[in-house]
């Protein structure tokens, strides 16, 4: 094995990457989000999407949904590293539950007149996107769905005068009667 002079063992790892959605139930206290994000940046993990909001205000509980990419060993590490943080109650790998619902909301601003404007409206209807703002030369569409559906809608809007997009990131929940 050839490697440059180094005090460390330099190795390439070839395990394929996987994308997982994690739901993390945390105590809503100052700095808790910084701890979670700091863990990801400090240990070199990826954050593809991050959503956080208080979900049970009496108990001061927040739910963080993180979409991350890594090898199976890295994904397992991320879950363990999150779980050992003091204010973290539970970490659930929604991807492993196999039947989680994942939704994202996007607001999509499109500018145009004439045929493009009609076409944008027609496609929005097909995607069940709502018009939440309109001027004579623009629309803002609100669309909800999984990330790939939103990506597809945005791609379709691009040639029709896409101006900008604001997305919430993924929120996830399991099917069936049980909570996390």
């Amino acid at each position, binding site marked *: 094995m050839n490697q*440059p*002079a180094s005090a*460390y063992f330099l*190795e390439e790892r070839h395990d394929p990457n996987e994308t997982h959605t994690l739901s993390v139930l945390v105590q809503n206290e100052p*700095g808790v989000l*910084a701890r979670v994000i700091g863990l990801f940046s400090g240990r070199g993990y990826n954050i593809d999407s991050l959503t956080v909001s208080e979900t049970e205000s009496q108990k001061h509980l927040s739910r963080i949904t993180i979409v991350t990419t890594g090898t199976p060993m890295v994904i397992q590490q991320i879950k*363990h590293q999150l779980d*050992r943080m*003091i204010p973290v109650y539970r970490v659930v790998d929604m991807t492993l539950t196999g039947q989680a619902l994942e939704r994202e909301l996007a607001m999509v601003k499109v500018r145009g007149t004439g045929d493009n404007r009609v076409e944008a409206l027609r496609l929005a209807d097909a995607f069940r996107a709502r018009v939440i703002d309109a001027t004579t030369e623009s629309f803002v569409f609100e669309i909800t769905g999984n990330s790939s559906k939103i990506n597809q809608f945005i791609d379709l809007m691009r040639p029709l005068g896409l101006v900008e997009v604001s997305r919430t990131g993924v929120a996830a929940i399991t099917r069936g009667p049980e909570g996390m």
Partner: protein
Amino acid sequence: MTDKSHDPNQMTGAAMIVRALIDHGVEHLFGYPGGAVLPIYDEIFQQSEVEHILVRHEQGAGHAAEGYARSTGKPGVVLVTSGPGATNMVTPLTDALMDSIPLVCITGQVPTHLIGNDAFQECDTVGITRPCTKHNWLVRSVDDLAKVLHEAFYVATTGRPGPVVVDVPKDVQFATGTYHPPNKSDVHVSYTPRVKGDENQIRKAVAMLAHAKRPVIYTGGGVINSGPEASTLLRKLVEATGFPITSTLMGLGAYPASGPNWLGMLGMHGTYEANMAMHDCDVMLCVGARFDDRITGRTDAFSPGSKKIHIDIDPSSINKNIRVDIPIIGDAGNVLGDLLHMFTAEARKPDIKPWWQQIAQWRARNSLSYRKNNDIILPQYAIQRLFELTRGKDTYITTEVGQHQMWAAQFYGFEEPHRWMTSGGLGTMGYGLPAAVGVQVAHPDSLVIDIAGDASVQMTIQEMSTAVQYELPIKIFILNNQYMGMVRQWQQLLHGNRLSHSYTEALPDFVKLAEAYGCVGLQALKPADLDGAIKEMISIKRPVLFDCRVAALENCFPMIPSGKAHNEMLLPEEATDAATASAFAGGKALV
């Protein structure tokens, strides 16, 4: 309005801090005063239950507390001021996090109304220390202070131990509130470390151990952290199974170095027999160690034919670097107890005679050998003499970081846990001297020796003044080769012997330096002087700085070169220029 003036639990935040220390059994704390902690220092002045040790630099307080904690099993406590006081603690906090040492660090902070205003000696202490603590808190109200302090002690000392920081603004120290003694509701309900191992997993492990042909036990700092009982159980398990045992740097002393099953330390500078046993074993029992990169070498060639059992209190240690077959989450001592009980009840000692014969062959290679020299003191010889002349005494050893640290680990035999304090994970030069101060505070009548290097020791040498002030008779045994030895070794082996800035051209006269501080300075120049000087050092009941002049260019062997596996070690007798060159082939320059 009720009259609260007679309620003994009504007190200022500063008084609460001292009261909480007393309630948690703290006898000593290490610190350095400053503007943002003056109310706490005022409280310390007015009591006598907690003794404060004044250091010369906050980093020294941190390492002293680490040494104190590591040698007693109790948390080390530190008190420093805001801003630079807190930032100077970052190194010891990180060190304690890497080596799982329980520390409770209380930092002063500027008053709450000034936080965020770039006030004098303000820094974002919780932000800076978030990645180098197990947990930290900024206390914004005196009403939260007692709860946070109790939780801090609980978090630091339970589960996988680690450092915590409680940042207390000055107005919170002045404010009056109600103190309450420690109770269970002080702790986050989300924090529930697991202590007891899963019985089914332990049963599987016992079955695997009972059928092993080439087993090895590999232990780490987790066994030490678990307490003396864990080491006792480990010794019983080794006896019950008859298995060979090796340990990481952090785990030395859990099993006695004089024990018949001891293979020596493993890893980059471990013994040949320990590393070969790890490589060729069929069952590996890892207890409280974390498959660190200094241990594994190339992970894809690490112990390729073995089934691995891993006992660890921290689930994130499992499958982090090496995939294991039977993970057992729990406290090392607790799991070892269950494992031993089940093994003696249900299994028999497997016959592993051929394996021991193989190990005997590896041992015969005598991988720690070095050539004798009558003119110059060899560092290995110096440690061996130090070991022989302190054998049987009540001795604690600390080290700095570098070649001398590895030689100490190789040549000083540890018989008991909690006797060996070294910076393993972070590798902090300057750890050993203040750590020795902390150890000596905890064990005033014991012999405490910092095995040091001439470069490392200068990073925190000002703590000699602390030792003098508190009449702590620590011994600083410097292997003085005038180089940053480990840096020089790597430069020689991997960077064409271009010794870039690893030679210290202007070393102080250590003997005069010792005298300037009010310590005793000793020196040994020749092997013939060594024993007498060491005996003199031991007999002096004052702090001693021992300048042991050793061979300048000695290398630390055996060694696993970068990118190599355990069975590709470079042994001392093979370390000719040609062999070294070929072992490091692929390096951009050769010796």
